[in-house]
């Protein structure tokens, strides 16, 4: 088992070598609570429980990405972001083989996952090229709020072997901002990576850097971001040490590497006044009111004057993973005028469940993933000298979505008066009669820019791939991420999901209003009325008596005559 722990000291702090204490199997860093931490644990298949190993036999690659729905600052080099929730990317060893990893996922993360089989529940993202390794065959997403189930699984199955502090490690994941699990058949190893943001108050978030057992290796880096020489590179300086080696003193280091993901550097507005501090662009997302059955997701940039592309040949994109209750109509987004009215440029990719008519209760797929290019404000807004930022200066992009018909959750949860930590199967809660509450994760926003040729991104020790959207671009792409605003409208910490109230037909309504019986009665009344008119009252004119019949004959002679003529004509023709 290998561990690699990286403490990322924030800008403005120095790294005092005296604060680093090493021993044979531990390392203590006194300023750890101010630092962001990335922990990476790599275990060989032999070190894992047998049940996992059997499933992984048929898997070529498996990438699980969980992202917290609480906003966090993402310092370089940990700048990549994903919509909050659980993302699974998976390629079976044999193409088209029916490998079912749904039971494994349910065991690891939640029994409420909407997952029956890979063929039905996963989606197939478009693959740009066969040789490009950054996209898996299948994709899955679930808006998972917390990792409690996973933590329990870890503690139960793995900590049996390691005991004691292992449980603390599992518990510390409650505070992680993202957790990655990677497996590929070539390395035969499973890697778990977790990231904690800087400045977490709770002591339980931090664990000591310690070897779990003899024979493990533990590598610790205490690093700080430096100004890079090249615009596309990231430079880190600090101290690196391998715990337990002879030369145990932390050695100073300075290295740079090309990185796929970058943060946007704060930009000065080109204003004469110096009163505005340089700010980075941020975005906030909400559904426009009233949403109805066709909600528009509005992405608002509060300071559009800072929204300039970081390089030439960049395009602003939004990546969404929508649960199956919402969908995007690709045909609607094919019209340039319509796109322009929403400040969109194009829908570049849409995969997953795209049925335009089906209700949610027949959909087995998790939902759909969309990559949209957004329009940027015209240059005049960017170079404005107006320092005030009222709502008039905001730039808003809207994404039109549509709701499927939903079930009220009481129909399909068969248990629980006690609320579970994970939301129920359809991820809905009843809030008031006739409505259901959905939680939709915010999109990830980034500038996608063309990278220089000849860069080897995989040299990056903190490289993060298989994020879903990076597979939709070519290999020479760099991503500059736009973070969500730190605070939401109420001033609290920004939670990266939107609640949507959706009208729904409740099952009780049928009984309450007598819909079944009422409809039958109405149909019976209507049908009976028509039958009565047909057979009874007035349609019996033809059965009047003889006298009237004669009159009838004479009156309708013309019409009858016509008919006769035609009939005779037929006889002549040899009918």
């Amino acid at each position, binding site marked *: 088992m290998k561990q690699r722990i990286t403490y990322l000291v924030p800008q403005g702090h120095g790294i005092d070598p005296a604060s680093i204490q090493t021993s044979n199997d531990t390392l203590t860093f006194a300023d750890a609570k101010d630092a962001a931490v990335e922990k990476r644990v790599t275990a060989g298949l032999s070190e894992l429980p047998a049940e996992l190993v059997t499933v992984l036999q048929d898997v070529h690659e498996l990438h699980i990405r969980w992202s917290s729905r609480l906003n966090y600052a993402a310092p370089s080099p940990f700048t990549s972001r994903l919509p909050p929730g659980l993302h699974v990317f998976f390629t079976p060893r044999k193409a088209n083989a029916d490998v079912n990893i749904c039971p494994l996922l349910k065991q690891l993360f939640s029994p409420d996952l909407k997952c029956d089989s890979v063929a039905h529940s996963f989606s197939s993202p478009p693959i740009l090229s066969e040789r490009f390794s950054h996209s898996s065959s299948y994709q899955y997403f679930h808006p998972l709020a917390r990792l409690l189930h996973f933590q329990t699984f870890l503690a139960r199955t793995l900590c049996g072997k390691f005991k004691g502090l292992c449980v603390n490690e599992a518990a510390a994941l409650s505070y992680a901002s993202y957790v990655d699990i990677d497996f590929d058949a070539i390395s035969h190893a499973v890697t778990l990576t977790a990231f904690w943001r800087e400045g977490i108050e709770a002591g339980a978030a931090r664990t000591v850097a310690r070897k779990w057992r003899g024979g493990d290796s533990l590598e610790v880096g205490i690093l700080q971001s430096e100004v890079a020489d090249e615009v596309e590179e990231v430079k880190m300086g600090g101290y690196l040490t391998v715990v337990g080696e002879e030369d145990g003193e932390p050695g100073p280091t300075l290295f740079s590497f090309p990185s796929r993901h970058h943060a946007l550097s704060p930009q000065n507005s080109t204003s004469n006044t110096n009163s505005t501090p340089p700010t980075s662009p941020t975005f906030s997302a909400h559904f426009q009111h*009233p949403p*109805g059955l*066709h909600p528009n997701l509005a992405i608002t940039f509060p300071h559009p004057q800072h929204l300039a592309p970081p390089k030439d040949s960049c395009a602003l994109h939004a990546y969404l993973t929508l649960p199956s209750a919402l969908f995007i109509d690709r*045909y609607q987004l094919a*019209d340039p005028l319509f796109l322009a*009215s929403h400040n969109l440029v194009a829908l570049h990719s849409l995969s997953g469940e795209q*049925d*335009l*008519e*089906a*209700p949610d*209760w027949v959909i087995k797929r998790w939902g759909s993933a969309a990559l949209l290019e957004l329009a940027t404000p015209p240059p005049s807004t960017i170079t404005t000298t107006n320092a005030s930022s009222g709502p008039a200066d905001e730039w808003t992009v809207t994404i039109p979505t549509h709701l499927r*018909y939903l*079930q009220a959750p009481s*129909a399909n949860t068969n248990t629980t008066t006690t609320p579970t930590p994970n939301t129920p199967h359809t991820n809905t809660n009843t809030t008031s009669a*006739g409505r259901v509450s959905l939680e939709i994760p915010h999109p990830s926003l980034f500038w996608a820019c063309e990278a220089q040729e000849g860069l080897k991104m995989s040299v990056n020790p903190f490289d993060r791939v298989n994020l879903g959207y990076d597979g939709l671009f070519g290999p020479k792409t760099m991503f500059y991420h736009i973070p969500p605003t730190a605070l939401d409208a109420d001033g609290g910490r920004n939670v990266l999901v939107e609640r949507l109230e*959706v*009208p*729904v*037909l*409740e*099952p009780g*309504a*049928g009984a309450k*209003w007598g*819909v*079944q019986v009422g*409809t039958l009665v*109405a*149909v019976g009344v*209507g*049908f009976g009325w*028509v*039958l009565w*008119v*047909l*057979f009874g009252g*007035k*349609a019996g*004119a*033809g059965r009047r008596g*003889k006298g009237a*019949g004669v009159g*009838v*004959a004479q*009156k*309708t002679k013309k*019409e*009858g*005559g016509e008919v*006769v*003529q*035609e*009939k*005779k*004509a*037929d*006889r*002549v023709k040899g*009918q």
Partner: protein
Amino acid sequence: MPSLSAFFSRPRLVFATAIFFRLALLIYGRWQDANSAVKYTDVDYLVFTDAARFLSRGRSLYDRATYRYTPLLAWLLYPTTWGGWYFEFGKTLFAAGDIVTGWLVYIILRKHKGMGTERAMRFAGIWLLNPMVANISTRGSSEGLVAAVVVALLWAVLERRIEVAGCLLGLGVHFKIYPFIYAASVFWWLGGNAVRAKGENVVRPRWYEVVTTFVSPARVRLVLSSGITFMLLNGVIYGLPFLEHTYLYHFTRIDHRHNFSVYNTVLHLNSAYYQEAAGLKIESLAFIPQLFLSLFAIPALLAKKDLASAMLAQTFAFVTFNKVCTSQYFLWYMVFLPFYLPDSSLLRRPRLGITALVLWVLGQAAWLQQGYQLEFLGMSTFVPGLWIASIGFFLVNCWILGVIVADVGDKEDVVIPVVALESKKGR
């Protein structure tokens, strides 16, 4: 009004107006599409033209989501793939179908109902100058084509061109399934005399006469020609995706997005909460009143009195009792109004007619208001709002159907004097 009178007594003027009206709408529609985010063109038209484009590239039509029509339609719209103004070809075709329909209505009214030019033109104007009809066709909805086929069917039957009628019937059913109900009324109508006058008496045919003359040469020709046409059309375009999307879909469709149908709420409930469905299978039971009326009762009792009005009543019953009902379906029966209205009590008693029209419009308006609240304001109006509105509209339609049926039933039976039948010479 003298000027109206002068207008309608010149058919060429009326037809020119109808054509000009549609041309104007087509050009306006193209302008609106190019300059506004809200399109004039119907979503269905985009489905048709996409499918035609797939065809031109050798791909399957049914790759286009929601394409559930016959491949004939995509072939008909092939010119739309040539780009530019050719994109409007389909809409032009549908609008032309409108005009043809109007013309057929006019000549049927003149020849078979014995109307004068002006009166026939007035009633044909119900279709030709109707803004709703023109709007639907120029937006690119194909209902106008089916109406043309159906009226042509009526014309062919009245002209006693049985094979042509059979082919049109087969074509109509291939296009949209519902014209199969006309098979019943046409078949029954071809059976000949409703009553016979024996000297001064009127004699109804005895039951055994009905049975022995059931299989008449005319009827055989009808069945054969329609059956062969239908099989040919399906055979030429054989394939499971076609069958699945065009026919089978209509039996298993589960998209119960709200529509006018009286069954909509129940079907939505049963689909979402199958545990709650009270043993009754509404999906299957719903066919009973619909088919009993449109396929049996109405043809049997009314077809021989007035074929065109019977077809109106059949279609009206079919649409009213259908499990799905959208405003496009109203065109299916609207095309028969010019044949029914001249003798109807809706015109003879204007108050009745106005009441019927007002109630019919109000019924839709109430439903649309609830639908608007649901779709755009997000209020849960499924029950009771939409449900009660759909029941109201349904009952209004049943009442109107009752009026129609009573009117047609009141008509005198078509009489063929026995003397004339037995003589082989012309009158």
